[in-house]
């Protein structure tokens, strides 16, 4: 058994006042019927394209809380809160015949990454601070812009950051697990007000 969370801000599709998951379960928004793939994972996780076969979950209550605070109707307040849903899934809930799979985006992406001898690499060519820029560009943008040192002197181009690398950083930020298929309402064990 494992516990996952999902946050829903005020005015979002899964806010309790819009669609109560305890009544409907969670259903991914996939209007085009696109297939699950590493490309779709990168679009979903790094580019925020939620018209995908995936529904984002997190292993972290705190991450879900962050998502629950912000919604299209504004920032949650005590009188108009967001919600964090607690979802319990067991081995018999997922896999063959259940219509539900769980995907670890890191594991899925890692399986598609090129071997070390392949050029270009998915790895960056920046310095040790670059990861700060990827994770939090608002505070550390300079690390994304400064050309890294190269053999024989300074570089001229900013560090190389691939979509694969960004996706992995962002998935780690959110302790993210992707659900493919519908999560039944019976899996939703609790919900918490967030404000």
């Amino acid at each position: 058994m494992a516990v996952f969370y999902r946050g829903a801000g005020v005015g979002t599709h899964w806010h309790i006042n819009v669609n109560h998951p305890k009544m409907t379960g969670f259903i991914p928004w996939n209007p085009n019927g696109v297939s699950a793939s590493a490309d779709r994972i990168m679009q979903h996780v790094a580019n925020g394209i939620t018209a995908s076969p995936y529904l984002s979950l997190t292993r972290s209550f705190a991450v879900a809380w962050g998502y629950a605070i912000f919604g299209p109707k504004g920032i949650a307040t005590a009188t108009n809160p967001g919600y964090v849903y607690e979802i319990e899934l067991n081995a018999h809930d997922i896999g063959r015949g259940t219509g539900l799979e769980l995907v670890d985006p890191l594991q899925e992406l890692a399986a598609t990454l090129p071997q070390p001898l392949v050029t270009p690499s998915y790895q960056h060519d920046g310095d040790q601070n670059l990861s700060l820029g990827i994770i939090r560009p608002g505070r550390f943008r300079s690390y994304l812009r400064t050309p890294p040192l190269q053999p024989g002197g300074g570089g001229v181009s900013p560090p190389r950051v691939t979509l694969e690398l960004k996706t992995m950083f962002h998935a780690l930020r959110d302790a993210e697990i992707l659900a493919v298929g519908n999560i039944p309402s019976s899996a939703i064990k609790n919900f918490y007000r967030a404000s």
Partner: protein
Amino acid sequence: MSESHKILLEGIIERAGIKFIEAEISEKFDVPFAVVWYSLGGTKQTEGLRLDLDKEVFLDHPFADAERQKVMRKAAREISSFIGHYLYPTRNVSHG
């Protein structure tokens, strides 16, 4: 005390009839999101757009047409950078 802080988005250029007015961030929680309020054809919309400041993407996608989608992708990067400079003015210089 207000639980949010609003940042006027002066300098974000109006494109395809979309004008970005202000971004709302939480005063209470250190969370990398904002709600961006905008007008469409001069009418302020009743729903804002969630912006992930780390990913520099909108989490809400109200437009189906390709031109406006392109505008939104560019605006997400511009607004994220704008908010970054607003919040951390001294951290966004080159560390050369």
